[in-house]
């Protein structure tokens, strides 16, 4: 799980052009939207692209997205659960 979280941090920085951040600057449990990284709706779409491109995952139920994209940790848990 820790490796996946680290990979996700690097991928998020790359996909969202957060070039001023380093992976260690991102708190895995901090909110991705609003506070924390302060991502916006376009970033949410980029995260959906990231999931599909890098992990072959599509979120089937839009209502689940809020929980999945809560933090890097919840994102990693979702990916991990889907891979089982």
């Amino acid at each position, binding site marked *: 799980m820790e490796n996946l979280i680290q990979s996700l941090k690097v991928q998020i920085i790359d996909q*969202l*052009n*957060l070039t*001023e951040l380093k992976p260690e600057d991102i708190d895995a449990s901090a909110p991705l939207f609003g506070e924390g990284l302060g991502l916006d709706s*376009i*970033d949410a*779409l*980029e995260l959906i*692209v990231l999931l599909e*491109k890098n992990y072959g995952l599509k979120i089937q139920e839009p209502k689940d997205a809020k929980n999945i994209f809560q933090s890097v940790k919840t994102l990693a848990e979702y990916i991990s659960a889907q891979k089982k």
Partner: protein
Amino acid sequence: MGNYILSYSKIAANCLWHNGKLISKSAETAAPSTILEDSYKSLNLSYPKFFKMDSLSKLGVLCAEPVLKDEPVNELFAKEKTAIVLSNKNSSLQTDLAYAKTMRDFPSPALFVYTLPNIVTGEIAIKHKITGENAFFIEPAFNAELLYNYTEMLLQENDAALCGWLHIDEKGCEGFLYFVAKQPAGEGKKSNFIRHNPDSITNLYIN
């Protein structure tokens, strides 16, 4: 009483200038992206959204920053009565091509939102809370007459306007923005202001 250019900036030949003063200088061989990054650092900006913007928006935001933060401009003009009038020759072509490339695989939402030239006017307006009207003209070359005529018309109902030219492609970038106002903001500084006319605009652009 005529209109005056109160402040202007340029990014050209690897340098960022504000009112003729050098702010930032990049290496002769620097790529446009490096010039923009060097300018960002020199302006001591802390604006995370900058890094998500396309190159055209970065160029516009960087050129606008010293002009709109300039003392008379920042302090004396109502943001709701300030217009933005920009122009270039390539529209948003560089971003359009980058987006087209992603369409072969996974279309990028972050690139898609920048596939219009007037997004840069929005980025400048958001950063500086400007809510006046705006326009973006596509012209084969810098056209001082067009900018002058359109701005003069706008100034009949607005107090001020940020105007200019923003060009960027893979070879280089050229930004020139200037702030025009209905009247000099402060008699004591009047001698520093430049009369707004096509010749003065052209002179500032060339020199």
